[in-house]
């Protein structure tokens, strides 16, 4: 069971992070006209790395508790940073729609790609289980 978990873990974590980033960018786009709103985002590479280190812990004894990967927890632990705008606006809002739209499109494509990878892995597992 653990082998299957490990096999799918990276994809699951990446998916949770992408989903969280999607929420953040949606928040930025929603607040494009809110005075004083500061756009936020997460550093995806760093976030995935920190999610992965939690998962490298080995169990040398049967009684040890599993460190278990918790994709939701791992992504929630990563704090969001503030975007640095190319140009400041008078009302203190740092949302630049161009930047946000590009980030959103990129993130959506990556989410879709991660689903593709996970689908491939699930197919592999299924054919192994069926013994095809």
């Amino acid at each position: 069971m653990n082998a299957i978990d490990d096999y799918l873990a990276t994809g699951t974590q990446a998916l949770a992070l992408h989903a969280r980033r999607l929420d953040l960018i949606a928040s930025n786009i929603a607040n494009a006209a809110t005075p004083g709103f500061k756009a936020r985002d997460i550093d995806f590479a760093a976030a995935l790395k920190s999610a992965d280190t939690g998962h490298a812990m080995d169990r040398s004894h049967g009684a040890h508790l599993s460190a278990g990967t918790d994709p939701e927890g791992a992504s929630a632990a990563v704090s969001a940073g503030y975007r640095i705008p190319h140009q400041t606006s008078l009302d203190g809002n740092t949302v630049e729609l161009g930047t946000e739209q590009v980030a959103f499109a990129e993130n959506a494509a990556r989410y879709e790609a991660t689903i593709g990878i996970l689908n491939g892995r699930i197919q592999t597992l299924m054919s192994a289980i069926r013994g095809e």
Partner: protein
Amino acid sequence: MTMSIFDISGRAMSAQMVRLNATASNMANAGTVTGSAEDAYRARRPIFAAALDEASAARATVDVERVVAMDQAPERRHEPGHPLADADGYVWAAAVDPNAEMVDMMEAARQYQNNVEVLRTARSLMMSTLRMGQ
């Protein structure tokens, strides 16, 4: 309850809709005249405020805090023949700048569309997630 991407974009769309309604009211009243400066129509604008998610401070949607009348003086015109004119023959035209309203309308419509696009993308991603492994 945590805020979903549908709450974020949905509430942002309602906020932009309030803004569009305010713009429409302003445009509709752009030509009106009254017999006193106090009664003259003044352009209305919604004030947006970010509504943070209690569960995760990074997520935020928009709320319309209130709608305020702009601090703009109505234009005084001398029209003695006007039925609403005061004793000195003056009327006051609504304090609305049609150009500013047009710009605001375009911006609100654009941002509304952006939120629709976010919703559409989120929905299709959700559907692919549901179909995973099939």
